[in-house]
Every structure is written in C-alpha cells, then in structure tokens.
C-alpha cells in the first residue's frame, strides 16, 4: 500500500498535513481498509477549543467491526472539525486524505511535527503490522 509523500503519520495510523501553524488530521487508507476498520459508521470528535496531550485519545471511530479510539499525534488545541462526517461517515472510506479529514489542531510546539513518521517510515510500519 502506498501513502501520500506530502503527509506525516503517527504510529496509531493518523495522518497529519501541517501548513502554517495548523495541522489537518485524518486516518490513513490502511486504517480504514476492509482488513482493518472496514466501513466506518460513526465518528465522534472533540469540541473546537479543547486541548490534548500527545497520544491522548481525542475521539472514537465506529465501524461495522468495532469502536476504536483516535489519538492526538502531538500536543495542541483543536481549531476546526469536519462537520460533514456527522451525516457522511463514509467519507473516511471514500476519501481518507481529502473529504474524510477529521479535525485541525494548532500544535503547542511546531517542532513536534518533525518527530512524526514520514511516508517511508509509515509504509514500513504498516508492512510489519499487516
């Protein structure tokens, strides 16, 4: 499986697109694949304004198989959430890197972005888990 090279990733399968002080976050195509979560049926996201520590759970994703927590890839504050997911959770399956984004956070420390995995490291991680 190939992953977009312009994104960063966490070990818990979130992707991060960082631009100018803001990071858009979603979950990878691997995480939503039929072998992993499968069809997503419900997404629970935090409120705008909430702050999270790195690796702290900030929401739930429910699929036909299970309910899984999603984790803040770095410490920061939520500045936007994707409200469309309320009515259309299938966006996570159909368009994991575009229409299926989850939320946007402002990192407490932009240097944390450098600690995230790049596409090559994430590809290796997925290969070890599959």
């Amino acid at each position, binding site marked *: 499986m190939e992953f977009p090279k312009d994104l960063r990733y966490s070990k818990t399968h979130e992707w991060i697109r960082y631009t100018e002080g803001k990071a858009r976050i979603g979950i990878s195509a691997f995480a939503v694949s039929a*072998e992993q979560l499968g069809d997503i049926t419900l997404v629970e996201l935090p409120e705008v304004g909430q702050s999270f520590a790195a690796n702290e759970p900030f929401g739930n994703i429910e699929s036909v198989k299970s309910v899984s927590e999603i984790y803040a890839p770095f410490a920061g504050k939520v500045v936007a959430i994707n409200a469309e997911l309320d009515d259309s959770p299938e966006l996570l399956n159909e368009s994991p890197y575009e229409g299926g984004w989850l939320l946007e956070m402002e990192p407490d420390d932009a240097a944390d972005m450098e600690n995230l995995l790049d596409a090559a490291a994430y590809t290796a991680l997925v290969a070890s888990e599959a």
Partner: protein
Amino acid sequence: MSKAPTKVTQGLLHCERPIFAASVPGRSGASLPTLDVPEPAADAWPAALRRASTPHLPEVSEPQVVRHYTRLSQWNFSIDTGMYPLGSCTMKHNPRVADVAVGMGEFARLHPYQPESQLQGALQLLWELEQMLAAVGGFSRVSLQPAAGAHGELAGLMMIRAYHTDRGQTRRRVLIPDSAHGTNPASCTLNGFEAVQLETSADGTLSPDTVRAALDDEVAAIMITNPNTLGIFEKHVAEIAEMVRGAGGLIYMDGANLNAIMGRFRPGDVGVDAMHYNLHKTFGTPHGGGGPGAGPVGVSERLVPFLPVPTVNRSKEGFTLDYGRPKSVGRLRSFFGNFGVLLRAYVYMRELGAPGLARVTDLAVLNANYVRARIRDFVHVPHPDMCMHEVVANDQNLRSTGATTMDVAKRLIDHGFHPPTVYFPLVVHGAMMIEPTETETPDELDAFIEALRSVVEEAHKQPEQLKSAPHVTGIGRLDEARAARKPHLRYQPAGEDES
C-alpha cells in the same frame, strides 16, 4: 466420523411482510363492548397531551397476528434450533427442568410485597444460592441483586470505590489488559475511574512485569478476565493479585468465562476481591433478548461491608432481609434481583451438584480443544496450544482469496450454524471466537468442523459464494454499513412522511 449434512433445511419459509402491509380498514382482532359511559369532554386532557392524528396501528385479525409473529420467530436462530458457538457468550442448552420449578405456583404467584414471614421459602432459596455461588467462587459473600453481568461489574467497582473512600483514599486508575471483556473499561468510566490498558504478552497472557510497570498508589484495582478473551488461562493471576494487593489495590475478575473453570479453580483462593457470575452463561438460564438476566457479584472479606442492600441473612428465627448496612453502596435494583432467573440457576446447581459442575467445566474445555485441534489443519489459530472453553481462529490464511472473517461467518449460516463471535477479541486480527460449550454432542461438533472446512475450501475455489452468503435464509446479506449509517428506526407506509 459422521459427515456433515450437505442440506440442512428444506422446509417452508414464509416471506413475511410487515404486519402493517396486511392491514384492512375496519378489520379487528378484538371485539370491544359498546361504550356505555359518557365520552370524555374534548378538553378533558390538555391539548399538548392529545394526539393530533390516530396512530398507525395495523387492522388485522387475531390469527393474522398469531401467524405473523410465529413466522417471524421461525426466521430466528436459537440454541433450541442448532449449535450456537458464539464465543464469550456460552450459548449452552438451558435444562428444561428449571422451567418446571419456575412454573410452580409456590414460586410463580409470590409477590415481593408479601411479609417476610410468608416468603421464608424464597428467602431460603436465595440464601442457599448465595452459599453455593460463594463456594464456587471462593468468596465470603455474594450479592444476588445485579440484573446482568455488566451490572455486576458496576456493583463490584462501586464497592471498590467505596472501599478506598472508606480508607480516605481517592485512587482513580483501573488496570485492564487488552484481552479483557469490552464492558470492563465502560464499567470503570461509569464509576469515575480511568481505565489504563495493559498489553498482553506474545503468549496471550498478562505478564507480571507489565502489571508491575503500571502499578502506583493511584491504582484502585485491576480487572482481569480469566480465562481471557483469547481463551487462555491467565496463569500469573495469583502473582499479579499479590502484587496489586501489595500496592494497595484490589482485584476484580470478570467471571464471564466461569464455564471454563467452575469447580476446578476458585478465584477467591488466589486473592480476587470481586467477581460477577453471568447466570445466563454458566448456570443455564436463558439469554433472553436483553433480559431478564442476573449478574450476582461475589466479594472477599474486605468488600463485605460495602455489599448492596438488601442481603438475605439467616438466624434462629428464620430468614430476614437486611437493609441495615451502614457502609453499603445502596440499592442496585428493585426488590431482590431477578428472582425467576435466580431460581433457574438454583435448580441448575442443585441438579448437577458440585461434581457435576466440575464435569461441565471439563467437557466445555474438552469440546473447545477438540474443535481447536481439528480446525488447525485448515484455519489459522494464532495461539495454537491448549485453550480453555473457547478457541480463537482468524482469516489470515484466506487473505489471498479476498474472503474475510465476515464472509466465513455469513456462509456458515447456510450450513445451519450460528456464526462464531467475529472481530473480537480486538487483539486478534479478523478473529473468529468459537465456544462450542459442553452441551454439544461429538456428532454436532464434527458437523460444525466439517461445515467450517467446507466454507474455507470454498473460499479458495469460489469466494463469491461466501461474499454473497447467506443464501438459504429468508433475508440475504444485509448492507450493515448502510443500516448503521442511515438507519430507518420507524416503519413508514409507502408514500407517507414521518410525522
């Protein structure tokens, strides 16, 4: 060895429509007498409480109603229809002798508001059931109040919280291995505890080192499911219990898998402080569509003062209900628990006796291991060594076929079997959790194994047969994702808007 039947059904299965579709204006299943009192005035009820329109009730005859629900019931699959190897649920036969006891007027016509003097027999039964359950678990006392397994967990954790509060401590964290039951973290959260997940070791058990690393003076308790959801006995449970106890924490054990240890291992003997019993799993009471159930909770001496009220006490004068327990966590349910369910469990235990209960365990474990040893040839079993009462397989060997655990489960229905539990435990990818129970015959186990073998072989040759299964049920494969995303929660006749 018997060969699995290739055809398991050849009967009449009615294509039943919603009962509303059979409605004919003016038809009625009941003849009501003519109204012989004055009609209430139009404003007898506040306008806000009055309906604007009449409800959409089907207008059908009594035999139509009877047939409708009988036909729908024939679409159902139950333990009375066939083998139901739903892992973690212990779907075993419910001995019919319990129905005889429940139907006896002496029990059926009791009323909970009768004075204690008239309830002596029922109270004695509850007291004796408590003694028997305490003996099985190795506990000081048992509360029969909780109405379900998760309710028992809640009761146990409330007592654990009360214990720490009583000692002037506010411990907030509860350790839970990732192979525990899914209800455990929920029960913690409901009690204001923070659930801390511990990782299972490669051998499928919880390592004492993992627990040691997570222990501190904030830990209120550990919740262990034993055997765990991988069907493996937590062999370090005694050492872990001692360690947690040494750090001032308590030990909760999820008793949902008691069918694997009853009569052979007593959790109280290794220092477990609280455990719930799922009477509908281990003690042969029905798994009724969500209830009524019973989840008694047994406790060690340390937690006895905090038991819910009432307890049944025995004295020279007879049996009494004790509400005067100052440190009690309070009442958890109306009256004295689900008496009818408790009565069934009492009959089950008295029928089998202590040696019989141990034999239940032996046969449940034997049956699961028989299934494990035989399915290993054609499906992947991640932990292939000796299991307890259930075995976890997965779809790893099927990856190349495109068929998944879900497809295998659906195709098994065509062979006349209820699917195993799927995609649980979460620690096994694509899990199929098979719990045959002690009440299946060797013939039935063979038939199930051959059905699973044939489905796996088919996955390699004709995977589309699995993808589109089930084929012989009244309703075929449902779009589960759509059902969850856009549920229709209310029947709407064609062309009418929701009102």
